[in-house]
């Protein structure tokens, strides 16, 4: 019954730092009530990035997962943190996106010089740091209940960001988000209770060794996966996402769309590949993929029909999330010896990463465009190109990745998914990938077309945007594009720590 013990590796303490550092920053901002809350954030952000990079370097060098057993208490009694190739990739991604968002947000969330502590900067920076702690915990924790706490941490950080401007629509969106996320949490917790009742442990590695095919496990996984899908806003559970992500300030939307919805998906990945009794269930995998297909097609059309830029991007997020769920049947049917050596798995993970970069860049660009023009109606975007050319270019580059056109991370990801679909004869999935690409191109070009049109004669620029903000956005978009030069094959790095789990 007791699974093999986790052995703490050298440098494991960095994992603790990755989780705790944002908390320290958050508490400091909160407690000191400083005139300029953002200064502490600017101290924490680069350090956090360095920590993530250091862990990544450690993992890459040793070729094995970095592990830390908290307090020295072995799971299942205690809780272990573990950074494998996948989690480290996502941690670095998170750090990069947050640093970029931090730079761009400097314009909108700096404390005015003549005031003491102001509401929106203080709230924004504390919540962003809270979010970071939550995300790192999600990526590192090996305990299902600890993951629950992390998910809640995520929700509580994300919801107030949605209604930061206090308008009625955003309050409504935030409340819907909160309540629906809470149903998701409860379903997840219910599943965890059943698993504990059945196995006496919530440790991932322990469950992996013990997992049986019985009613309790099936019901628990069903509840947990459904709950997590509600939090990830997969169609048709996307009711909360478009208004919430469109209503939040652009810098917050970028984080919400790029990172926050990925966390529940990451836990689904963990459940599916680490907890569910293997071989995984074909029918459930197909169901996930069909929901993904529906998500791609339905929400792409919805994105195409939006009048507001940010709403369009929000619907596009739901559509792009659909791609992630395509990987389950693709991995199952693949003849690769392990899941993480299959093209489908790699493609899915790459889609996650490239979408995060592209979507963050897109939302930030949309924010700058809206700031410069004073609105974000797609029909009246004329002249954007002449005011914020770099932002429009960033939007276009990010769009390239969403459409899946080369050279971009999105292209490689979709190509890998398409290859996997072809190899495993999942023709519907292949068709959905291609059709989704065409629809994505349609909605991106619709925006670019307007943005590049000559401005109307009475055109007036509402605000001038400092160059560094635009360049940061462009940098993110370029990251998404540069990902397109990774080779088209499973990477050993993403598989680190997957083999030989304790």
């Amino acid at each position: 019954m007791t699974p093999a013990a986790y052995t703490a590796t050298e440098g494991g303490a960095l994992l603790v730092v990755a989780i705790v550092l944002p908390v320290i920053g958050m508490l400091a901002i909160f407690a000191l009530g400083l005139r300029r809350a953002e200064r502490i954030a600017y101290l924490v952000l680069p350090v956090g990035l360095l920590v993530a990079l250091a862990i990544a370097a450690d993992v890459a060098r040793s070729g094995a997962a970095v592990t830390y057993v908290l307090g020295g208490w072995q799971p299942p009694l205690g809780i272990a943190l573990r950074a494998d190739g996948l989690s480290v990739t996502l941690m670095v991604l998170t750090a990069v996106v947050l640093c970029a968002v931090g730079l761009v947000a400097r314009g909108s969330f700096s404390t005015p010089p003549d005031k003491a502590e102001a509401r929106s900067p203080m709230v924004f920076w504390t919540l962003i740091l809270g979010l970071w702690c939550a995300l790192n915990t999600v990526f590192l924790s090996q305990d299902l209940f600890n993951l629950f706490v992390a998910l809640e941490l995520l929700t509580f950080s994300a919801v107030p960001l949605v209604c930061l401007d206090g308008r009625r629509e955003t309050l409504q969106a935030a409340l819907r988000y909160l309540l629906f996320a809470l149903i998701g949490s409860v379903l997840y917790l219910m599943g965890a209770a059943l698993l504990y009742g059945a196995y006496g442990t919530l440790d991932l590695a322990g469950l992996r060794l013990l997992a049986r095919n019985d009613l309790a496990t099936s019901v628990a996984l069903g509840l947990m996966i459904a709950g997590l899908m509600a939090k990830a806003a997969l169609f048709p559970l996307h009711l909360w996402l478009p208004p919430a992500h469109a209503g939040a300030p652009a810098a917050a939307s970028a984080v919400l769309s790029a990172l926050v919805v990925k966390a529940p998906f990451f836990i689904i990945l963990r459940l599916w590949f680490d907890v569910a009794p293997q071989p995984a269930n074909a029918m459930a995998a197909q169901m996930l993929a069909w929901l993904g297909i529906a998500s791609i097609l339905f929400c792409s059309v919805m994105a195409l029909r939006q009048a507001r830029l940010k709403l369009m991007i929000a619907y596009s997020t739901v559509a792009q999330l659909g791609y992630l769920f395509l990987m389950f049947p693709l991995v199952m049917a693949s003849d690769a010896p392990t899941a993480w050596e299959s093209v489908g798995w790699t493609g899915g993970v790459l889609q996650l990463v490239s979408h995060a970069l592209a979507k963050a860049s897109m939302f930030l660009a949309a924010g700058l465009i809206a700031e410069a023009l004073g609105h974000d109606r797609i029909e009246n975007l004329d002249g954007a190109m002449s005011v914020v050319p770099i932002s429009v270019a960033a939007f276009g580059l990010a769009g390239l990745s969403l459409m899946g056109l080369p050279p971009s991370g999105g292209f490689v990801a979709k190509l890998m998914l398409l290859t996997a679909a072809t190899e495993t004869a999942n023709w519907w999935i292949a068709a959905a990938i291609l059709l989704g690409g065409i629809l994505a191109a349609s909605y991106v070009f619709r925006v670019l077309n307007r943005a590049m049109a000559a401005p109307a004669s009475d055109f007036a620029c509402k605000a001038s945007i400092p160059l560094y903000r635009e360049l940061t956005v462009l940098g993110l978009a370029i990251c998404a594009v540069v990902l397109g030069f990774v080779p088209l094959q499973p990477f050993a790095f993403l598989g680190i720590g997957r083999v030989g789990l304790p």
Partner: protein
Amino acid sequence: MSLLPDFALMLLILIAAVWTVSARDRRDSVIGFIVVGLLLSLAWIRLNSVDVALTEAAVGGGATGLLLLRACARLGPNETEGVSLKVSLRILTGVLCTVVAVALATIVLYPIEPAPTLAPTAAAHMGEIGLGNPVTVVLLAYRAIDTLLEKVVLVLALIGVWALTPDPLWGGAPGSLRAQHSSGPLTFLAQVLPPVGIVIGVYLIWNGADRPGGTFQGGTVLAAMWLLVMMADLREPPEIRLHTLRRLVVLGPVVFLVAGFAGFWIANGFLSYPPDLAKPIIVLVEAALALSIAVILGMLVAGPAARAPR
């Protein structure tokens, strides 16, 4: 025969729950919920989980109930309650909820034998900590990170509530908690009870190390005393910009973090305690946490700032 009280309790809980959901008036619903909370704490005692029972009574029934009652009072008359949905939708929902319940019930009725448990492992290591209450040991040693993050959740929730402050009022105090009519008995209670309540709160925290009780239960009692004082209009809620308030809020998490990091030097890693110092450290952490919890709970109930800072 011995099942009769349990059966009666279960029936009462379910009836109260149905009433809570089906009541027309929202105040009735809240009262129903508080009743469920109190009955549930009895159920927890029957499940031999006294710590949980205390928490459920203090938080589930008490603090949540107060929060909801205040919300009722501020919401005004029921207007949206009357919207009725299609019968078919109701039936469908009913069927789905029943299916979920039946699945859960089946699992409850056919448990794994012998039941898997961590109790022996937990008991085996208790000596290394030197505390008598296993739940406290789990909360502050074995799974301390959960507790730490949970405190972060509370701070974030507080920030989330404060985030709803209208911009001009930022830094000001939450709206008065005063009852609509000032009343003698309440003032009297608020003058007499707090000393006793504080003693009980401290007792719960101190006692929590070895017997049922602990940070959260104690903290809630402290918060209740504070709220009582504010409701009786003996004290106004503090301004949210106050540095003392802010520092009290973060005191618990900070002490916890410091204790955690100290583990790197005095024991073998984050959140680990040396056996001979474990108890004092844990009690210290608990005390700090309880203070923070009391402040956070009170401010959560008080809500966002409603008056401009002075």
